[in-house]
Structure formats: C-alpha cells, structure tokens
C-alpha cells in the first residue's frame, strides 16, 4: 500500500480515538446529534447544562491537550532521532523533559504559581548544555553525546527529587502527580499553551523533512547534499526543547511517547520523513489520548498519572524492540 492511503487510515483511526475520548467518561456523551448540537452551539450556550459543561470545560480541553502533548513529544522524538542518528533518542531520555520539570519544580519551591517560563528555561538550559557538548563532539561521537544527555537528565531528576522533599506532604502528592504527567484538571489555558506549539512545530518539522532524511544518512553525507548540518542540529535540538518544555509546563513529564511514536510511525507509513512526520504526530496523539482514556477509565479514586501508563507501555515497547533485534 502506498504511503498516502496509509496516512489516511491512520488519520481516520486518530479521529475515531479522539471522538471516543471526548464521548467516554463518567458522564457518557453518546447522543451524537446532541453532541454535534453542543459543538455547534459553542461553549457559552447553554451555559448551565451539565453535558455542555462536561464537553466544553472538561472533555474537549483534556482531549485536545493530550493530543497536542502527544504531537509535541512525537515531533521532539523524530527530530532528536534523526539529529543524534540514534533510534533511542527522545526528549525524555535526553533530559529535555527533566530540565523542564526541574525548572517548574524549582519555581514552585520558590513560591511561584506560574511554571511555564521556568519550565521553558529549564528545558532550554538543558538543550544549551547538550549543544555545548555538541559543538565539540557532535560530528565524531554521537553515542557519547546521547549518554551525556542521559546523564544530565538524571542529574536534573536528582535535583528535582531533592527540591520535592521541601514541599509539605499535602502539596507533595499533587506535585508528584503533576510530575508523572497528567491531563486531569487542565483547561483551555493549557490547551492554548501547548496546541500552538504542536501546530507550528508540525509545520517547521515538515519543512525540515528532507534535511532530516539527509542527516539520518550521516552528517558528512548531509553536508555533501547541501544541508547546513550544525544549524539543523542546533535548531532541531532547540525546537525539540521548546516543544518538550511547553508540554512539561502544561502536563508534567510524560515519558517514552517521543520514543515510541516515531518507531510505530515508520512501521506504519515508511521511513522518509515526508510521511513519517505526519504519521508520528498522529501516533503520538493516539498514544497520549489513549493513555489518558485508559487512566481515567480506571475505577474512581484509582486514576493513574498518564506518565505511569506511557512508562509501562514504553517498557513493553523497549523489550519488544530488543526481542525483535535478536
């Protein structure tokens, strides 16, 4: 099957999952004609009807936020895997998400309420540290650089843990829940933070699709074929850092989506980034929306952070990759 029909099928599956995630929950919204009516009516009317509130204030922002976060993480993964020429690279593994989390938790510990800018600063600082190492080593020793990213991420996590211990027990649970990644209780303000990043990021990565193909061949070959390698590496890491930071600031750290989505996308649609980027965006959205649907489908009081579910999925995925390689 050619890539276009494959992408169309994937698009249909993504749309179906998004609609399911909007409809399913403690208050089921299964009357489709009523659902369409409420969608057309907009959020303001009828203001007090329960289904309208569930749809416009809870379900829609939650599902859209999850989808946008999944897209951001998948785009980060696909960028970093090509740049580092390593199929295991992703924002979480490279410490970009951990840097964002450290920034956010440090701001909360200092008494701040808004975590967006500190998270952004944390992720970008981590990207700068990685890039500083890049400038010296990127052409010759990418695996070591990836390990350096992993080490910096572990350091950021250690600092985050040390900071968390300063919170009182009441705040501790909510901070931990936030850190593990969750879409619960988020609203339109978070959607407006993450979704523009997903849209702009998607177009930027699509523009870079062929240079990313060339970079995945090797930096020397990319140079010979007209790619400004250092600029692409620097810009790509910075873009992945911004996308990870926006996601961490709104939803906490959600691991392994950036690793899994590009792999699954390449399987489903093919290796060239012209098709694997849109496929990865859709798979990323499906993974986070699906994980969130699973998280909130558990019995009341046992809802899990999304990061726990994606972490478990990531573990199974890693093992499956290992078994396949053997």
């Amino acid at each position, binding site marked *: 099957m050619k890539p276009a029909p494959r992408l169309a099928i994937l698009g249909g599956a993504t749309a179906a999952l998004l609609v399911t995630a909007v409809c399913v929950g403690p208050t089921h919204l299964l009357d489709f004609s009523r659902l369409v009516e409420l969608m057309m009516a907009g959020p303001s009317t009828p203001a007090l009807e329960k289904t309208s509130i569930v749809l416009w204030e809870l379900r829609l922002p939650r599902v859209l936020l999850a989808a946008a976060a999944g897209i951001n993480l998948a785009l980060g993964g696909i960028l970093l*895997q*090509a740049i580092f*020429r*390593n*199929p295991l690279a992703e924002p979480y593994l490279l410490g970009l998400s951990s840097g964002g989390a450290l920034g956010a938790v440090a701001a909360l510990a200092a008494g701040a309420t808004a975590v967006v800018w500190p998270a952004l600063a944390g992720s970008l600082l981590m990207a700068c540290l990685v890039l500083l190492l890049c400038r010296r080593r990127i052409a010759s020793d990418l695996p070591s650089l990836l390990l350096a990213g992993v080490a910096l991420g572990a350091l950021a996590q250690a600092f985050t843990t040390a900071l968390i211990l300063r919170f009182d027990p009441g705040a501790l649970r909510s901070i931990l829940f936030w850190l593990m990644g969750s879409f619960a209780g988020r609203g339109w303000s978070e959607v407006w933070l993450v979704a523009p990043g997903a849209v702009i990021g998607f177009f930027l990565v*699509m*523009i*870079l*699709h*062929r*240079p990313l*193909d*060339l970079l*995945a*061949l*090797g930096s*020397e*070959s990319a*140079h*010979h*074929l*007209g*790619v*400004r390698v250092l600029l692409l590496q620097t810009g790509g890491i910075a873009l992945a850092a911004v996308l990870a930071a926006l996601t961490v600031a709104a939803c906490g750290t959600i691991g392994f989506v950036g690793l899994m989505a590009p792999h699954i996308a*390449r399987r489903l649609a093919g*290796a*060239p980034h012209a098709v694997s980027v849109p496929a990865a965006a859709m798979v990323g959205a499906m993974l986070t929306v699906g994980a969130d649907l699973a998280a909130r489908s558990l019995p009341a009081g046992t809802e899990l952070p999304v990061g726990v579910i994606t972490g478990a999925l990531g573990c199974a995925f890693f093992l499956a990759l290992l078994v396949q390689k053997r």
Partner: protein
Amino acid sequence: MSTPMLQATDVRAGYGAEDILRGIGFELRAGEVLGVVGPNGSGKSTLLRALTGLIPLRAGSVLINGTNLSELGSRQRARLCAVQPQVEAPLFDYTVEEFVLLGRHPHRGPLTPPGTGDISAVKSALEHTDLENLGRRSIRSLSTGEWQRALLARALAQDAPLLLLDEPAAHLDPGHRHATHVLLQQLSRGKNLAVLCISHDLNLAAEFCDRMMILSHGEIRALGTPEDVMTEQLLQDVFRCSSLRLAANPFTGRPGTVFSP
C-alpha cells in the same frame, strides 16, 4: 582557456595539531577524469574533505567553477559538486528509489514534491548504475556492491558538473568495477563532467583516467598523464613494495602494474 571546475592552491589541512595535507595544488577541468592514488594514510580521504569544506583549510584556497568554496552557500555547493562517500550507514530504511531521490535535494524546494526533472534524473542514475530493477528494494537488503552503486547513483542524480568519488569501485566485482570506470569516462566525455576519483586500483586508474595524482604523506609526489606518473621506481618507493613492476596493458598500451615473485 575555460575556468577550471576545481582549482586547489597550496592547500594545507589536517586534524588536531597535525597537518595531513601540505601544499596541495592542482586543477581539474570539465571533461577530465583525475585519478588520485596513494598508500593508506596518504591523505586521500582528507583531500576529499578539504575540497568539499568538511574540514577547514589552514592555508591555501579551493575554487569550484571559479568561486571560492567559502563563498558558496551549502545548496549552491551541492548543485556544483556531488560526492560519493566511501562509507555511509543510513539510520532508517529507504527504498533504492527514495534513497537516490535524496540526491535531488539541492534542486528542490522544502515542500515541493519531486518534479519530472527529479524523476528522470533518478531513472537515468539507476540505469547508469545497473539498478533499474532494484528501485523498490530496501537499501538494507542490498549487497555491498549494489549499495556502492546506489551511493554512486545518488551522486549522479545530484546532476552536478563536478563529481568527487571516494573509492567508487572498492567493493565491486570485476564486471561492475570495469563498468563503473567506463561510466565515469563516458560521463566526463558525454556530459562534460569533471571527475575526481580516489582509487586503490592502479591499473583501472591508469586505464580510465586522463591524469593521475600520486599522494604520499599528504603531499603530491606526481601529477600528470598515467604514462608520466606511473614509473616503477616512484610506485615502489611510494607504496613501499619492491615487488611492484610496470607492465603495459597488451590491448591498450596503457601502463599497469603486476607483482614479481
């Protein structure tokens, strides 16, 4: 006389504190095949890196079609100069057609789909390299020789007037090795390409190249026609092999080498 397609003047380049290349100067004109030979570690691959801007020059200059390499934009350089690397390990799997189409990058806009010019360049490159029946195959399923031809096909699809090749026939069987050299000669004559070809095969280089350069310890030991360059004493000295003897090709009269017992 026309502007040389490639002109290197007193080039010095290297890694770390060490200079690998010293005082390299030569010209390569359209329609000419220049073979670069030399022992392992003589600086052949470093020369390729210096000529394409992969490593900075410590002294001297490189002009491509009369323009200084440092003044060329990356895409502009790639439209003028195509390179077949010696090794490459793509991270992802592509079909041979997708892979060769990547050679068209310098000619395409960021989001433009392949045009008729791109498709015909890929088709022609696949035909030239005897890969037209393998277009839909995964590059990971290719044999070493087929893979080397795919690398050459991508460089040909780049459609540049200057072709730099790093041992393009190293892993090929005798038939494809011969065919590759015939192709390079035909391309230089028919399409007026300037071809620089690094090779370890002295006989094929002498047979198919218009001129040869012998590199040793980062310096040019000899540069000229195969007849001028291929002297027994020089080859024995450069390759540190007293068994290396000259023997002309009985069919073409071109110089070649054999080993004495």
